């Protein structure tokens, strides 16, 4: 029979790599048919709610639960005393520290979990929370890490002040770790002798990932079968299963962890929270399912924050502007417990990517982690581990150096970029950048926005301002970023000892459709759409015929989960590899069916053809059917495969961003007139999904740069516990983004893809911030700290005498 369909049409039908296929998830999300943790309701289910500390630092003198227990519908009120016999009143953190599940003798931050009320419904539980009487004796509060390092007040009385922590010796009872990378003496020597040195201190304020859906879990202990099922907002469900098994003593095969639909994570849902542990214990104690879902304020005040880095930098250069050395010291405020979510050997994440996109011969990074009376966390909010801090640091240092040298900041970047021919590039702080072409991207970006024209306009505006004709000034924000994503090689990246590989398993059904399962879990990234595209191109069956499943540990292969833009670099690679295994077997089946030697058939889009005789072929559909209905000598029936992928290196996406902004110096109100984002994430799987990710990441970058913060007063009261004060931008505040791209495939990833979900956040924050700061540069600004909300922008103008 003659094949009427052209090859091009066959490619289109696959909806494989490069296709802007609509997201298959959206049918249910846009119709309110998602299935989130709070949608899970089981017969007889109880609800838990927390009694939380109003004090930031206090001794807990007594807890009286009598009145709460007397309320009809209250089943249990758990305190640390109840958890202690199980050894669950404390739990290990991902950072090698431990954290109280329920207050054990004292509380260390406002909002800390003190008691867990279990009742027949959510309303009764909340009423009972008010009836639990807790007597506190207030202790001195420390919210400043520098003061903490000087203070006699011991925050963590449970730790031996002399004993080393998880990351080596501690200098002080409130000190957590020192982490050093690079050559400090050598760097200092270079800086001391340099023509030009620029120094700056900057505070990257505390903020919060604030996913739309807060955290929660439903635990169901089936005492008859000895099985625990745990549904929860988990970015890493398999690791949760392992941790739950280690903590509870229940064998791992008797635990099933399910991440259902997740309404955003952004790092907030990587760690383990007291609520998860309490729901499990409560279910074991009561013998019925127990649900715990926090509210917005609880999410903002007690679950993992991001950033809170005090960064001090020194950068040196020759007279021509060639950077010669970089020194960075960070005082990291980790709050009451070190609950950062970083690979074990990286207590400050990948902060040592802070040499950025520049060829810097020598550098040093030192990070000191410190305890304070603030909520624990330190997660990577829409970025790979601490990369946003690193990129912000270097992109500000570049600007400050440009000011010091009275040079154009775009040109200074160009002079210092790592050159295309230098890749793979070994950075002074230990990374091997896999690939890049920075100059091409930079030139394309500057041309797209007519950079020289913008500078001319800005200069005219400065003159007009000086003449008193306008009160509006203009800023041009630049940023060039290099991300480091896809953790990661098992040899140096693990979480609680689990190597950071990932996995994909696929079963092709007899009629040529398939189900594939991965160790990752989508929280809005669109995995069900894009992973099917990778498989479609590799295997030759349409993406529409491939169901993607993630998040159920009873069915999915083990993987380390989704964060740090690792899904495409690691699980996406596993998907490509599993596709190749399927193809290898399919080739043998095709050869058998076509009665030729294996080597005489070749893959072509959706089929195997006999070399040199393209009219003789077997489609993947025919091959799949044959796999189940023919006895093929030497081959097992069926068509399925599994792949565990340990990446040889991280991937290094990069991009060039420009923001054009007006600032009203009298009110401090910024207006973003243009935002151009060029991203290079290597091979582009689904351009529409990429664009969506970029819009989202830029919007969160705008939020952080222009106002989003978790702020405390001196008493340790959280001042930003609601969305009235915690800035979550709406369509109104967000500019029209222009997106663009170059393609520099990763040389070691099976399809050359690099991951993109977090790039826009990483590159966006410095871009928005630089735009604000650049507007004030002609008036003498060097650096002002984020968040650039109205009053701080106004203060920048005021400090520069612009209101006189």
């Amino acid at each position, binding site marked *: 029979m003659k094949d009427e369909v052209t090859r091009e049409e066959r490619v289109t039908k696959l909806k494989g790599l490069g296709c802007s296929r609509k997201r298959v998830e959206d049918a249910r999300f846009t119709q309110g048919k998602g299935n989130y943790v709070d949608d899970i309701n089981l017969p007889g289910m109880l609800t838990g*709610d927390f009694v939380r500390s109003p004090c930031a630092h206090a001794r807990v003198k007594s807890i009286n639960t009598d009145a709460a227990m007397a309320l009809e519908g209250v089943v249990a009120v758990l305190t640390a005393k109840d958890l202690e016999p199980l050894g669950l009143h404390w739990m290990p953190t991902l950072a090698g520290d431990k954290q109280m599940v329920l207050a054990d003798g004292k509380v260390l931050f406002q909002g800390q979990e003190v008691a867990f009320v279990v009742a027949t419904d*959510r*309303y009764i*539980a*909340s*009423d009972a929370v*008010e009836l639990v009487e807790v007597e506190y004796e207030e202790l001195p509060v420390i919210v400043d890490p520098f003061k903490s390092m000087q203070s006699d007040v011991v925050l963590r009385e449970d730790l031996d002040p002399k004993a080393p922590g998880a990351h080596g010796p501690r200098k002080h009872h409130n000190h957590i770790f020192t982490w050093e990378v690079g050559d400090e003496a050598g760097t200092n020597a270079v800086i001391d002798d340099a023509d030009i040195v620029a120094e700056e201190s900057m505070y990257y304020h505390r903020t919060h990932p604030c996913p739309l859906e807060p955290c929660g879990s439903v635990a169901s202990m089936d005492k008859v079968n000895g099985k625990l099922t745990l549904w929860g907002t988990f970015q890493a469900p398999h690791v949760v299963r392992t941790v739950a098994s280690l903590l509870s003593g229940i064998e791992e095969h008797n635990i099933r962890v399910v991440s259902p639909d997740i309404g955003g994570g952004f790092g907030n849902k990587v760690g383990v929270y007291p609520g998860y542990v309490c729901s499990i214990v409560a279910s074991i104690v009561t013998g019925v399912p127990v649900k715990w879902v926090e*509210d*917005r*304020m609880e999410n903002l005040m007690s679950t993992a924050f991001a950033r809170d880095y005090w960064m001090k930098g020194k950068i040196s250069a020759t007279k021509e502007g060639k950077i010669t050395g970089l020194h960075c010291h960070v005082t990291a405020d980790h709050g009451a417990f070190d609950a950062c979510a970083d690979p074990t050997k990286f207590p400050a994440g990948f902060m040592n990517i802070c040499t950025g996109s520049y060829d810097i011969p020598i550098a040093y990074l030192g990070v000191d982690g410190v305890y304070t009376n603030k909520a624990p966390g330190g997660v990577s909010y829409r970025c790979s581990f601490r990369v946003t801090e690193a990129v912000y640091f270097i992109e500000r240092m570049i600007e400050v150096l440009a000011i010091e040298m009275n040079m154009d900041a775009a040109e200074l970047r160009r002079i210092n970029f790592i050159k295309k021919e230098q890749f793979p590039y070994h950075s002074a702080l230990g990374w091997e950048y896999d690939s890049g072409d920075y100059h091409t991207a930079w030139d394309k970006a500057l041309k797209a926005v007519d950079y020289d024209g913008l500078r001319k306009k800005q200069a005219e505006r400065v003159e007009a301002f000086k003449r008193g004709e306008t009160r509006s000034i203009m800023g041009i924000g630049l940023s060039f970023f290099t991300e480091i994503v896809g953790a990661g090689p098992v040899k140096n990246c693990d979480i609680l000892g689990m190597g950071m590989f990932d996995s994909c398993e696929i079963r092709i059904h007899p009629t040529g459709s398939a189900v594939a399962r991965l160790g990752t879990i989508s929280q809005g990234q669109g995995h069900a759409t894009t992973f099917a595209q990778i498989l479609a191109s590799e295997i030759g069956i349409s993406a529409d015929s491939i169901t993607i499943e993630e998040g159920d540990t009873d069915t999915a292969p083990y993987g380390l989960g989704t964060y740090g833009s690792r899904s495409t670099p690691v699980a996406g690679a596993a998907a490509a590899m599993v596709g190749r295994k399927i193809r290898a077997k399919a080739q043998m089946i095709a050869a058998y069916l076509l009665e030729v030697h294996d080597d005489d058939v070749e893959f072509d889009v959706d089929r195997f053809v006999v070399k040199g005789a393209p009219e003789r072929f077997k489609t993947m559909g025919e091959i799949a059917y044959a796999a189940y209905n023919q006895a093929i000598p030497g081959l097992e029936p069926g068509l399925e495969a599994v792949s565990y992928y340990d990446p040889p290196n991280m991937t290094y996406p990069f991009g060039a961003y420009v923001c054009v902004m007006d600032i009203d110096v*009298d*009110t*401090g*109100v910024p207006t973003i007139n243009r935002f151009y984002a060029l991203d290079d994430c290597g091979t582009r799987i689904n351009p529409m999904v990429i664009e969506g990710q970029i819009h989202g990441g830029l919007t969160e970058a705008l939020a952080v740069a222009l*106002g989003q913060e978790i*702020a405390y007063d001196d008493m340790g009261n959280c*001042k*930003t516990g609601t*969305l*009235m*004060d915690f*800035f979550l*931008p*709406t369509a*109104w*505040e967000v500019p029209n983004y222009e997106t663009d791209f170059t393609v520099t495939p990763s040389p070691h990833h099976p399809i050359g893809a690099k991951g993109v979900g977090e790039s826009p956040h990483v590159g966006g924050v410095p871009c928005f911030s630089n735009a604000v700061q650049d507007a004030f540069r002609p008036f003498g600004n060097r650096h002002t700290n984020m968040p650039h*909300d*109205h*009053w701080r922008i*106004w*203060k920048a103008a*005021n400090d520069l005498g612009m*209101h006189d």
Partner: protein
Amino acid sequence: MIPAAFEYHRPSDIEGALSVLAEHGDEARVLAGGHSLIPMMKLRMADVPHLIDLQDIADLKGITIADGIITIGAMTTQHELINHEALFAAAPIIREAALQIADPQVRYMGTIGGNVANGDPGNDMPGLMQCLDAQFILVGVDGTRKVPARDFYESAYMTNRDDEEILTHITFASIDAGYAYEKQKRKIGDYATAACAALVTKDGDKVATASIAMTNLSDVPVLSEAAAAALIGTTCDTAAVKAAVAAALEDIDPTEDNRGPVAFKMHVAGIIISRAIARAWSRA
């Protein structure tokens, strides 16, 4: 964010509502759009054992304009205010101000009555009503009384309304003046950092009358008679506006919050007031 238990009442006339109020005293409160009261109940900052929903009381709804007098039922939503063409023709400042309140979702629910009765210094309508010299009609078991908006506010959340009274209507004269409602906020859905309502009429090239009121710059809305006086009789030139701003700033007493410290608020208030005056004058 879970409120305590409460009884829900839904009377179909004002008498019914008044009798529940009388029966339960300060244990009871009326519910309009719920977009101020319900969040307070969820935060357990307001304890309301008896909630009286006013939404079935037809008499509290609607806008009438007759003989130059505008009467707005307390249960009229901000969305309805914005979309009422006759109201826009008679008092365009209402639409301009209402569009700066919260976001569309809140405006579908929030009512003018709830907004002015609430007594939150952040609410935009109270300052606007003072600027317009509106009258609030209050009904209690002892009858009906009229209170000028300018006399209604005592301190944050404390008003001249008796606990057992219901605000039924708001009335004010239609305007024939240059108008402006100017507001600075951090984002959509935020209360004002500083806001100002201004009405200015012209006689020849001089200011004939002026009315200037401000929002969220004290614990109550502030009508600045001194600011108005500074404008009247002038050509609304830079010096006059400056004098008016200086006078208005004398009348306010902002406090520091997450929007910024007092110095910032005073400065922004000055800018917002001068912009409101300038825009109102340009339309006079």
